[in-house]
């Protein structure tokens, strides 16, 4: 198979397409999604992805609960979201069709694996009649393709048993889509050859299925012609694809290098944060020590211990783990030690929606500890931005000797986008000095603060003459000795608060995207809604409206000019995947009558939903 398979039909050029692969959890939809993402990236498209899978590893086959999907949006221009609605749905079974049909617009295309549309599967999906046979899909362009039988036939020729062969049908789908959208095939062939090198039969079956899918597109008279999406004109530079969790891991390693402090990363397995542990545990040659703790509490405790010992201490989790780590965060606030807690948010409360995204831990991050216990909170706004956010979280933690909470979410964690690689040599030096000598009349006072940052000295065990004891009991200002004096407690509470509030002087002012300067409506966002807000603004601006956008990376403290920015606009819209948490903070802090656009459906906003809200406000 060569890279350019001559096609008898001229492709139609389109600027973008949104494809959703959907099938059973065991059908390999995530894998196919990853492949099409990779080849599209290397081909030069801009792209964004949205994996969506159930919490159960293998929910009963054929049921709606077991449907796993992967949406990819690729384009010849810079795009901001994985796309509101798929142009094409690849449905591997009736449940996949039923679960996803509601997201399609009339006129969308559906490729259905017709082999799986038999009585049993139809019944499991709740269909009384085969939707491929009746008129229920008349609004769509439906392409029934016998993927299973064609895969079995192709794989039989390479000697695959039918069970192995059947499992290759996702590669048939990948082959067909590769033809339909003129995707390069060589990288996929090479990938299959490498990935399954140890299992020659599986390798050959997958290759056969992939080629069969491709040739089916070419030869079957089902499709008028293929499409092509030209490469996008991105900013010059070197690019790779990156997911949020991978970017967090890389950001931590980068920060460790630029702080010249080895990482101790302790965590407990939890969706959707576990991939950070998986990734970091591979990079021991960077001096990264990883521990899978006995529980979330121990993970946070290990991080506190490592911070005391002078390492870069990090722990990550999702909401349920943040609940458990809150006591260690309180201790770290009292000990004034640097530590980064990453919260990859998911739907709550309680176990909630483990594999679905939400932004509902903002107030937990802000206030989820007893006592007056402020700490900095930063949030990532896109998968690649997770790299910068991790670096910033480490910088703040080290400079101010404080625990920092970094908020990501399930969408950012698993979603991919092209990342323009930073010049690693240009990353700033964020190292901080350890204390090496007594600081007060020949004695060492562990709570004698830097007058500028209010940070206390970081004296690590092993340093002669600086032995000191610190703990969760209130400490006397300066000496750090146990102290119950009322005035001292008041002073210490206010000092800790001032230290965090003072970080506002050390973070960038909030930039406002207001091209005309004439907007009276400001959309204020934070976290992963960035892409959807930007996409919505493109549409409303295209329609001639002036609307401004500002996006918060620093949630605590807020950028110093936030109040001033808010005051410039008549109205403020705050879209959030929660029931109004940032809105509540902004209202309390600035007495601004914000308007909330809230959604907690476990999936990102659609840009169109934000667009509609903006247009309604402009009416």
């Amino acid at each position, binding site marked *: 198979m060569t890279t350019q398979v001559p096609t008898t039909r001229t492709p139609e050029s389109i600027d973008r397409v949104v494809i959703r692969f959907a099938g059973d959890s065991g059908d390999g939809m995530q894998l196919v999604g990853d492949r099409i993402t990779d080849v599209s*990236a290397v081909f*030069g498209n801009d792209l964004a992805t949205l994996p969506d899978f159930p919490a159960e590893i293998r929910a009963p086959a054929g049921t709606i609960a077991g449907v796993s999907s992967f949406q990819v949006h690729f384009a010849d221009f810079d795009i901001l979201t994985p796309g509101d609605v798929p142009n094409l749905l690849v449905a591997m079974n009736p449940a996949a069709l039923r679960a996803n049909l509601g997201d399609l617009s009339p006129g969308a295309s559906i490729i259905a694996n017709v082999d799986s549309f038999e009585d049993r599967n139809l019944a499991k999906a709740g269909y009384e009649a085969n939707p491929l046979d009746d008129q229920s899909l008349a609004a769509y362009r439906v392409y029934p393709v016998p993927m299973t039988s064609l895969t079995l036939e192709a794989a039989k020729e390479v000697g695959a048993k039918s069970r192995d062969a059947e499992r290759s049908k996702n590669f048939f789908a990948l082959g067909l889509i590769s033809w339909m959208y003129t995707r390069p095939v060589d*990288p996929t062939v090479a990938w299959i050859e490498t990935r399954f090198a140890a299992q020659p039969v599986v390798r050959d079956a997958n290759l056969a299925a992939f080629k069969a899918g491709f040739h089916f597109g070419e030869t079957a008279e089902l499709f008028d012609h293929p499409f092509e999406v030209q490469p996008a004109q991105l*900013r*010059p530079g*070197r*690019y*790779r*694809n990156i997911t949020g969790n991978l970017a967090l891991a*890389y950001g931590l*390693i*980068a920060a460790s*290098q630029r702080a010249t402090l*080895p990482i*101790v990363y*302790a965590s407990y397995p939890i969706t959707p944060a576990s991939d950070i542990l998986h990734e970091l545990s591979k990079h*021991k*040659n*960077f*001096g*990264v*020590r990883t*521990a899978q*703790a*006995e529980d979330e*509490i*121990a993970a946070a*405790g*290990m991080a*506190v*211990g*490592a*911070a*005391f*010992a*002078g*390492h870069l201490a990090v722990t990550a989790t999702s909401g349920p783990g943040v609940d458990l780590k809150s*006591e260690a965060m309180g201790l770290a606030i009292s*000990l004034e030690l640097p530590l980064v807690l990453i919260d990859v948010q998911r739907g709550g409360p309680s176990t909630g929606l483990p594999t679905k995204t939400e932004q509902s831990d903002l107030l937990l991050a802000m206030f989820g500890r007893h006592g007056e216990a402020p700490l900095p909170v930063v949030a990532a706004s896109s998968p690649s931005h997770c790299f910068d956010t991790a670096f910033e979280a480490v910088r703040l933690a080290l400079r101010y000797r404080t625990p920092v909470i970094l908020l990501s979410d399930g969408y950012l964690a698993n979603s991919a986008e092209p990342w323009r*690689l*930073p010049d*690693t*040599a240009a990353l700033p030096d964020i190292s901080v000095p350890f204390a090496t000598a*007594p600081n007060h009349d*020949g*004695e*060492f006072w562990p709570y004698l603060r830097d007058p500028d940052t209010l940070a206390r000295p970081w004296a*690590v*065990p*092993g*340093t*002669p*003459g600086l*032995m*000191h*004891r*610190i*703990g*969760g*009991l209130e400490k006397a200002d300066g000496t750090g000795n146990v102290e119950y004096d009322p005035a001292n407690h008041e002073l210490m509470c206010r000092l800790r608060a001032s230290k965090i509030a003072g970080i506002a002087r050390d973070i960038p002012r909030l930039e406002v995207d207001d091209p005309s300067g004439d907007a009276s409506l400001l959309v204020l966002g934070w976290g992963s809604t960035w892409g959807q807000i930007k996409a919505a603004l493109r549409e409303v601006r295209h329609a001639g409206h002036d609307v401004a956008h500002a996006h918060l990376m620093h949630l605590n403290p807020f950028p110093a000019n936030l109040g001033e920015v808010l005051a410039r606009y008549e109205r403020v819209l705050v879209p959030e995947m929660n029931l109004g948490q940032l809105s509540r903070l902004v209202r309390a802090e600035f007495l601004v009558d914000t308007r909330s656009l809230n959604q907690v459906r476990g999936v990102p906003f659609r840009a169109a939903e934000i667009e509609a809200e903006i247009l309604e406000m402009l009416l």
Partner: protein
Amino acid sequence: MTPSDDASATPTLTRKDFQSDQEVRWCPGCGDYSVLTAVQLLMPDLGVRPEELVFVSGIGCSSRFPYYMNTYGIHSIHGRAPAIATGVAMARPELSVWVITGDGDGLSIGGNHLIHALRRNVNLTILLFNNQIYGLTKGQYSPTSAIGKVTKSTPFGSVDQPFNPISVALGAEASFVARTHDMDRKHMQETFRRAHEHRGAAFVEIYQNCNVFNDGAFEQILAKDKRPEMLISLRHGEPVRFGPDGARGVVVNRFGELEVVDVADVGADRLLVHDEHRPDPTLAFALSRLADQPTTPTPVGVFRAVQRPVYEEQLTQQLVDAQARSGPGDLAALIESGSVWDVSD
């Protein structure tokens, strides 16, 4: 001038070098004082400098201990000391890390962390002060209080089955398990020294009297005149024998269980010879079950001392191996790993 500054100029350290300037605030007569004294007096003999020591504690009376040591120390969160100490040890394996905990801190709220630190075999010296009561909260029953114990929270007697701390530690795969008590400084120091020298997690239960809320809990075995007949001193390689003139001893019965006997009845040859290095913990466990509560003859000393890989040493070795295999980390190469593409003007 802190004491250690003096010390750095002089080759030998004294007790004073390990005493902080903080006033000790336990109740007068508390057993904690004698443990503190034993540790501070022992320290100069261990060959470890104050700055190389880290004492980590949880919450409770005994957990105030680190404040009184002129070393590095963290008085942390209730029950979490083993986890926090694990973080210190994994970051800095060269340090000597001690955990100070109690029966409530270590076996109730922190039970999970204790057993996992033991099974991982983190190089920690764990001193568990067992006074069978919650002292700092003023007298509730603890996970080592006997059934029927009347306390503020159990006015009609406790109905909870207590833990046997030695059995718990052995069940958690601890590589070093010992028991001592606050009435015998020499025994404490010898036990602490062994625990400190052990590579891996060393667990020491200290019977410690709370003279305010549980006075005399160990009186039946620790009163001076009771000790000869009630304390079974375990010595490696020697028959397990105790009592005046060594008249009593321990044998393995026909069920493989241990039994206290009169030596005259069975003959000295039948006595169990204590072997703290036995890979199988069965006999050590059986020794720990000889006394259900400290009211009958109770073994003290080292129950088990075996060598197995140390957690942070293995962790460090993986780092060394990874660097030997892949060279030191190259950040630019890392972020370019996988598929990359260039976009030019």
